[in-house]
């Protein structure tokens, strides 16, 4: 018995050499602390992008209205503002919860509990990526938005349409300043509608719909793409750590599945970033 305890203690001492200088700073292991500082630097990267979005949006006289841009839902539904992105948000939140559960099971060294909840987290992450693929495909394939062309605009004056688009707008329909529109593209050609302005500096003049601010498409695809890349990376690392948990690699480390805790920190950070992407692109 006594010799067993001895070897056990010896083993412990051998598995904790990360901080050779003595006691752990901030009572956190090397890996966890460095994960926190990596996330801090990543937070600055995302902040840079989101602040650029804010500055460019503030510098434009008009900006596409999110409830109009993001209003499609799988199955051919239209005019369902924000419904699909709310679903995406719930998927990511749910996967954050399952991640917390995996970490908790790790703390009590319950191997199969860790594997089960990590699998749910992986499914959640993959489902989120699938939703994002559908959203991008709709925007690029059906609505023809790209990094360079943004067919979503909003009126800066009120007026009356002089022609219809065969979808929602009929000849003679009126609109107000701030109303949004989508310029349709058929057979490889754009079809901006003609209208007569009724107020503002051009009152009485015949005009046609203009493309929206170009920066919108570039910012949207770049920022949600960068976030999606984080989700993808997260799913890959979750898979690796899930397999390692299953094969029992972390059982011998006896540190309460700290690797699961570290990937958990990363995964919650991805959720945290989505809170602000959701706020800036969809809610405001």
């Amino acid at each position, binding site marked *: 018995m006594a010799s067993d305890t001895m070897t056990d203690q010896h083993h412990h001492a051998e598995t904790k050499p990360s901080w050779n200088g003595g006691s752990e*700073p901030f*009572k956190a292991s090397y890996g966890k602390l460095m994960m926190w500082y990596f996330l801090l630097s990543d937070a600055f990267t995302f902040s840079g992008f989101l602040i650029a979005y804010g500055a460019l949006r503030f*510098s434009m006289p008009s900006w596409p209205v999110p409830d109009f841009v993001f209003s499609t839902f799988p199955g051919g539904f239209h005019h369902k503002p*924000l419904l699909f992105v709310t679903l995406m948000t719930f998927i990511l939140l749910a996967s954050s919860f399952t991640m*917390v559960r995996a970490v908790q099971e790790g703390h009590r060294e319950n191997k199969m509990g860790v594997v089960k909840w990590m699998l749910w987290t992986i499914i959640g992450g993959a489902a989120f990526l699938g939703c994002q693929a559908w959203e991008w495909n709709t925007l690029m394939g059906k609505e023809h938005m790209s990094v360079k062309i943004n067919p979503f605009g909003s009126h800066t004056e009120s007026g009356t349409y002089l022609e219809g688009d065969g979808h929602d707008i009929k000849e003679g329909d009126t609109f107000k300043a701030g109303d949004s529109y989508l310029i349709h593209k058929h057979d490889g050609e754009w079809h901006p509608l003609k209208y007569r302005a009724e107020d503002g500096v051009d009152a009485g003049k015949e005009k046609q719909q203009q493309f929206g601010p170009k920066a919108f498409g570039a910012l949207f695809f770049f920022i949600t793409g960068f976030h999606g890349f984080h989700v993808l990376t997260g799913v890959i690392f979750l898979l690796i750590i899930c397999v390692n948990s299953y094969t029992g690699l972390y059982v011998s480390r006896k540190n309460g599945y700290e690797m699961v805790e570290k990937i958990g920190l990363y995964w919650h950070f991805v959720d945290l970033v989505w809170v*602000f992407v959701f706020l800036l692109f969809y*809610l405001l």
Partner: protein
Amino acid sequence: MGHLSYESSKTIATKTILILAFITIFEVVFALLGKGYLVDGFYISGWITGGMMILLSIVKAYLIVYEFMHMKYEVPGLVRTVLFPTLLLVWAIIAFLAEGRYWLGSRENVKNPPATESSSGTTPQGLIYELPENSL
């Protein structure tokens, strides 16, 4: 960790996720209500809805970082080294949004140059702005 029993940390996680879900639903409903989608002819000022969304998003961020990421249970030194640097962002946001507003003014000036400069004849050659249509 180690401060809480397995059962109580499980309860906290469930409570937190329910609060996060509730806040998200509230945000979406409030945004749609404010913009007149839910009740015909009923709008709320964008300043109120916008301010509310920003506030609620910060509450969500707090819950994720403090409960899900366990920041609540870390020692104060770790909390400070991670959170204090993010305070620099407050100034970055203020400065860059102000800059954005300034660009808006500059764009207007380029499109419609102030009359005084061109009439006094002091505009040097080569500084005459010509902007193509649809330059936005």
